[in-house]
């Protein structure tokens, strides 16, 4: 047994340091800060965010300045104004009616974006609310699963086309048709996710402690669903753009008065060999806008999943 030489001289007094205690305690975790850190760690996502942001801003501002309308054709009889190839004055050239394609493309992009964003919001709000309710209540599930079995088997494109055909073309009816056919898919997707976590131990514990269902949904389940909802949104936006383009291409989506990328693609597909820029610019814009929004959405969905925050 050795002698222990412990005396007061070995120790010095230290003043209480509040900042040091901050470092010793577990690192502070902020959900949204982690989301942004994760998101901005991807260079591709930053690039795509800039692309998407630029397109969105231009498509909002440019049509306001140009006031473009497909029905307004001041140069229709001036053949020197038609089919001008892209140059410094007309960045995207001019079309078969003598209008600037630059104005037309952004007006079309605005329509496509507007339709897909509104349809995505409506679809996801209805889908999430119904999906939550559907996943939580067994009684609702019994009814809704039958409704789903009927509706899910129906080809979406077909019903969408018939709906627009029946209501008549126009932005509102296209949004309506897109929402009517797609909300149940989102709701089903959310329902499955809710069912997976509904009976997890921490939720059972919450319930045992007397937490109300509403509070469980708000505090335990919704945060968990953020990444799932983001995934659904990032799929919906490009899908709706694609639908709008496709339906307008077939001529069952929008009326002639509305500028739209799909209608441009349809109108200019015969010019593929003679004046290819007329056709390729709308196609390229629709592709760029979908890809950038999709990648931004996917990265955001990954970043909003707390499991990816542990580094």
């Amino acid at each position: 047994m050795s002698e222990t030489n412990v005396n007061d001289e070995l120790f010095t007094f230290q003043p209480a340091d509040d900042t040091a205690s901050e470092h010793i305690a577990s690192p502070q975790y902020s959900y949204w800060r982690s989301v942004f850190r994760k998101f901005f760690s991807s260079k591709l996502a930053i690039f795509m965010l800039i692309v998407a942001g630029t397109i969105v801003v231009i498509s909002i501002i440019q049509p306001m300045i140009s006031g473009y309308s497909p029905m307004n054709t001041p140069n229709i009889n001036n053949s020197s104004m038609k089919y001008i190839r892209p140059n410094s004055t007309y960045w995207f050239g001019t079309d078969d009616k003598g209008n600037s394609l630059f104005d037309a493309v952004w007006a079309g992009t605005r329509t496509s974006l507007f339709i897909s964003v509104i349809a995505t919001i409506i679809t996801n709000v209805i889908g999430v609310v119904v999906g939550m309710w559907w996943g939580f209540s067994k009684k609702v599930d019994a009814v809704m699963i039958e409704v789903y079995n009927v509706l899910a088997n129906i080809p979406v494109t077909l019903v969408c086309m018939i709906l627009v055909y029946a209501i008549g073309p126009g932005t509102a009816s296209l949004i309506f048709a897109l929402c009517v056919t797609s909300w149940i898919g989102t709701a089903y997707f959310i329902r499955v996710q809710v069912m997976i976590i509904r009976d997890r131990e921490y939720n059972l514990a919450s319930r045992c402690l007397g937490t109300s269902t509403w509070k469980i949904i708000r505090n335990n389940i919704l945060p968990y669903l953020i990444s799932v909802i983001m995934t659904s949104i990032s799929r919906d936006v490009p899908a709706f753009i694609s639908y709008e383009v496709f339906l307008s291409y077939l001529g069952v989506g929008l009326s002639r008065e509305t500028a739209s990328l799909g209608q441009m693609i349809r109108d200019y597909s015969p010019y593929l060999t003679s004046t290819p820029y007329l056709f390729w610019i709308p196609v390229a814009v629709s592709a760029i806008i979908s890809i950038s929004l999709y990648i931004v959405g996917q990265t955001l969905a990954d970043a909003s999943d707390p499991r990816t925050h542990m580094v």
Partner: protein
Amino acid sequence: MRKYILTRILKSILSLFAVVSIIIVMIYTMIPRTKIFDNDAGIKKMKGDTRTIYVYRKYAELGYLEYLRKQDMCLEVFGDGEDYTACLVNESAQQHEAIDFYINKGYALETLKSGDPLVYHDYNWLELLGKFYGRLFRFDSKNAIQDEGNPDLERKYYWGKNPDNGTPAFMCSGCEYKYQLYFNGKFPFIHQHFLTFDFGESYPTSVGIPTTQVINEGQGAIKNSDQTFPTGLEQESALIQTSCKYKVTPDHLDEKKFDDHYADCLSAHESPSMVSTSYIMGIIALIISYGFGIPFGISMAQHKDKFRDKLGIAYINILVAVPSLAFIFFMRSIGTLLGMPDKFPQLGFDDIRSWIMPIVILALLNMPSLMMWLRRYMIDQVNADYVKFARAKGLSEKEIFRKHILRNAIIPIVNGIPSSIILCISGALITESAFAVPGMGKMLPNAISQMNNNMVLTLTMIFTALSIFAVLLGDLLMILVDPRISLTSKGGE
């Protein structure tokens, strides 16, 4: 199990009728009915009463309403007598009585320019559905034909021979169709006429031809072949004898060929029908997409996070994000650079080059979801206990992937195969439209833009029925492949 399948089938039929009913009501009540004349060239030349009567006749034919002219009203109310003759005089007391009779029944009155009255009654949604379904199913029987001009018509079923290939055929005299059941080399090989579907006639395009015939009959020039007719006449002819229907007044040309009244036949054509065109295209594309998609998916899962996997994911992401239309046009222009036509009808059915690009594009569009899901399922399986056990036993990675993981991962893929095969018939809306392929997929947008209501309903019903039953078949196939799956009892709980 049997009970489950039975309820599933019943539910499927129910949802089919629910969807079709909703669409019928929508089409007939929500679209302004004057629009059906937008594409009718004939009506533009008509004026006055001729035009009004034509409009009412068309509405009645298309099932919007029921109308009666002076003669029909008077005959219905007074019978064939003195009052009838008086009723035909405009503004007579009898005529007013007849008109009032119909107005009380809910009819509306329209006076033509000539002063003749016309009463009509719009069908409500219930009557619309009743009319549609009442007409839809046509059961053929030996008492189907009631022809006053031919009272001696024999009524019997008998066995005969298919004149095209000599196989036995179940035939009928007195039915609408002569050949009730016969076999030939065309899909689905066994053909029947016991139950036929009547969706009405196509209008305003292909006027007067039943919609089912429009999509089923061959296209292009007629194709002659050497045939022997029932009278013994040997002649080069395009008639398809197995399709013959009863004809009330056969002409002398018919009498040379046929010894009975069954002389109303379809003709054979050089090019396949709309249904077959879509089907041929779809099936080949399907084989290609499964043939490449499955190995690619496996290879991506085997080399997770390596170059191959990343390349595959990039391809999947691009195809998910880019509007399909943009992708199709992009591929089409690559095809043009390689010397392929950019529209199907340019070189037509006989040239193989017309088929290549649509098939390649269809296959490329089908592949991403197949690859994505197969990769996902396989990666999920990699950490399963049975895989760890197989590895512990000392099996090679290749063996584990092929014999253990793939067998489990392929089950959900099997579920999708029937849908893919059956839905080939419905064609690919976008691809067919972009290439102007004369198939089913292009037919629907065309019918919609031409306001061809009967055609829209026909195609809706076919497409919906196909997709509903494909899902059912997929579930049943999954049980066959994996006996662990039970659809009747709920797992988990």
